[in-house]
């Protein structure tokens, strides 16, 4: 049995410190968007072309997900399917409890009222003022008149448009128009927000304000944001980054958690010398597991099948020798265990008991082995760490 300790990540790359609801809280909830084996085609007959291939994706309440990928990779199609702007052809798409391919057209219209859309082209009504454009979305929610005006005014103020609320789009700059479009989408505090390049037309400050508002809705309203962007400035705000290529999800990374895992790993003696890319690879392959208080995580004598990192919670390491059972260590946040059986091929040499609800990240044997093989240094360090503990 081997253990190591790490420390809590706190550097500048950490998620913004003002979060009220952590991604760990969200991960315990049912997905607000569940995509299963979703495929989509354009055209028909000989011209039929597959755009999405067996997409699986779970997004939970409060997550801010950034989708990246080259043009034509299918991310806009996926967004439009989630927004019920296209019809689901194959597979399942469940959003906010609705199975979209089982809804009638009028139900889909109602469904879209619970979604905030931000389009790359702002598409504001040229004949309406900024205030009226925002009211157009509030109008669908049957908000009382005074409240409607207050809400529209408030959000426009937040976006720095207090001097422009009675201006029509033709009298606004590109950035101001985009901010009005953002205000229109967010005014109703929707549960799901779908955004296509919302910051592309904005300067650094405005872009930051918009993303902060999206972030705030995730944290205070449990809203889920799915955002397509090529703007690297806002990647730090993402909980998850989904990368698509040729209609397939090639990576789906819980960024904040990935960073947290890397921080734990790198601050330990064992992983300190690994390259960032290797750490990230390991982090991406780790699975989240939640163990209730009083439950065994591993048992002595069982074959070794996983390597564990404690994300949150406290566990006891217990060794049984004959009739005697002895607690040999207590492990907490940032500690890891389970590598010995994987390295030696022998059964577990100790049991681990969750003293409270414990959140763990596990790496299966195969991925653990691949990680070792990919880095000679990693293997040597692990072996050294292991043998030092013997």
């Amino acid at each position: 049995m081997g253990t190591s300790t790490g420390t809590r990540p706190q550097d500048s790359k950490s998620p913004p410190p003002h979060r009220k609801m952590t991604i760990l809280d969200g991960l315990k909830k049912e997905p607000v968007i569940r995509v299963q084996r979703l495929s989509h085609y354009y055209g028909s007959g000989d011209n039929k072309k597959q755009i999405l291939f067996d997409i699986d994706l779970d997004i939970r309440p409060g997550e801010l997900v950034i989708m990246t990928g080259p043009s034509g990779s299918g991310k806009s199609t996926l967004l439009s399917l989630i927004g019920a702007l296209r019809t689901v052809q194959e597979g399942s798409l469940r959003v906010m409890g609705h199975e979209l391919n089982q809804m009638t057209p009028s139900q889909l219209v109602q469904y879209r009222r619970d979604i905030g859309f931000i389009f790359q082209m702002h598409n504001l009504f040229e004949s309406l003022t900024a205030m009226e454009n925002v009211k157009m979305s509030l109008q669908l929610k049957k908000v009382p008149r005074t409240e409607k005006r207050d809400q529209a005014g408030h959000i426009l103020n937040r976006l720095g448009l207090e001097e422009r609320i009675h201006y029509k789009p033709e009298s606004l700059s590109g950035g101001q128009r985009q901010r009005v479009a953002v205000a229109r989408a967010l005014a109703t505090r929707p549960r799901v927000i779908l955004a296509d390049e919302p910051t592309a037309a904005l300067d650094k400050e405005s872009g930051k304000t918009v993303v902060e508002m999206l972030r705030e809705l995730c944290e205070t309203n449990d809203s889920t944001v799915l955002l397509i962007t090529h703007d690297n400035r806002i990647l730090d705000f993402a909980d998850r980054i989904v990368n698509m290529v040729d209609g397939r999800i090639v990576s789906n990374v819980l960024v904040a958690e990935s960073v947290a895992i890397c921080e734990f790993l790198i601050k330990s003696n064992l992983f300190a010398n690994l390259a960032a890319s290797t750490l990230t690879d390991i982090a991406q392959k780790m699975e989240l597991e939640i163990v209730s208080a009083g439950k065994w995580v591993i048992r002595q004598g069982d074959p070794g099948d996983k390597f564990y990192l404690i994300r949150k919670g406290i566990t006891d390491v217990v060794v049984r020798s004959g009739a005697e059972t002895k607690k040999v260590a207590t492990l907490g946040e940032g500690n890891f265990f389970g590598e010995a059986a994987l390295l030696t091929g022998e059964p577990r040499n100790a049991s681990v008991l969750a003293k409270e609800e414990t959140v763990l990240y596990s790496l299966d044997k195969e991925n653990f082995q691949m990680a070792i093989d990919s880095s000679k240094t990693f293997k040597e360090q692990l072996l050294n760490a292991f043998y030092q503990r013997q």
Partner: protein
Amino acid sequence: MRTRLDKVPIAWANLTHNHKNLANALAGITFAVLLMFMQVGFLNSLLDSTVQFLKILDGDLFLISKQTASTSDNEEPFARARVFQARRFPGVLQAHYVHLDRKFWKNTENHLKKNIRVVAIDPDVPVFLDPEINSQLEDLKKDDVVLVDRLSKKHFGPITKGVRTEIEDRMFSVVGNFTLGTDFGHSGTVIMSDKNFLNLFKDEDELNAERKRVELGLIKIDPAADLQRIQEDMRKEFAQDLLVLTREEIIAMERYYWLEGTPVGFVFGLGTVMGFIVGTIICYQVLFTDILNRLQQFATIKAIGYSNRYLVGTVVRQSLILAVLGFLPGLLLSQVIYHIISRLLHLPMNLGEVQVILVLGLTLVMSAGSGLIAARKILDADPAELF
């Protein structure tokens, strides 16, 4: 409480956003409204003008030949004796006859002869409702004198009191004027005594025949008597050769003749339809272009949860606003043009409530219809294309 006033006035905003486009649209609608008013006005004028002569006659029942389809276009004679017979029906106060004919009037300035309607009556009995005519009946008793409609067309030359000219090569003096107006069958009218009228016939046989026939019989009924019963009795008595009509019936028959029995009604009806079509096309073009320019915007609000019904409703509201805004100047302009035509042509161009309601109705239908056709384009607005 939430009312429609709380809503964003998107239809009005779309219409008024571009003032130049709005002005063009309103000009188009106004033109179509004007076109329809002109057609409806001319048609109505035609119908009004043909009955205005009947309206100045004082009779509760009218006798005309069964062969007569119109008293202003193909008046056929019947036996004068029938009028005398009518006098014997209980409840009849008076029964008088009227000769209707067309004769040549000589223009004293250019000596050209033009057809003019001749109305010949017994000047001893007032058969007109017009006090101006009745006050001059005494003058009509003189030999070779006439009263001339002062609204007769100018090609008759001077027609004022004192003018002497030839009617059917016989010299007549104008002893006075009255006001009637022209119609589509007559450019002018003179009233003379039956005695002077018969003097126009030089051929003895023709004269004898004319003495015994008239074109119109006017019957006055005792107000206490049962008009309907007397009419029924007369119909039975004169069933072989006469129609016995009330004032309303003869006016309706005259209007029907021009509306349905001649191509004139059809032509003006067609003109109205053309105005309607022109207006529809203009309105459609305006709305369609507007939708096309805003297709992305419509797609966007469709994406955020507005239904096709709401969007189509918005376009129809736009079209109805256009209709009302275009109708008002069209109505005003029409009144001005009616007035000008009425003065120039002496036609009764009146803008009645019926015409106003008719054209307003047509304008609303035209605009709403074109709005609905144009709004089909909104169904093409695909929000999926926005991402």
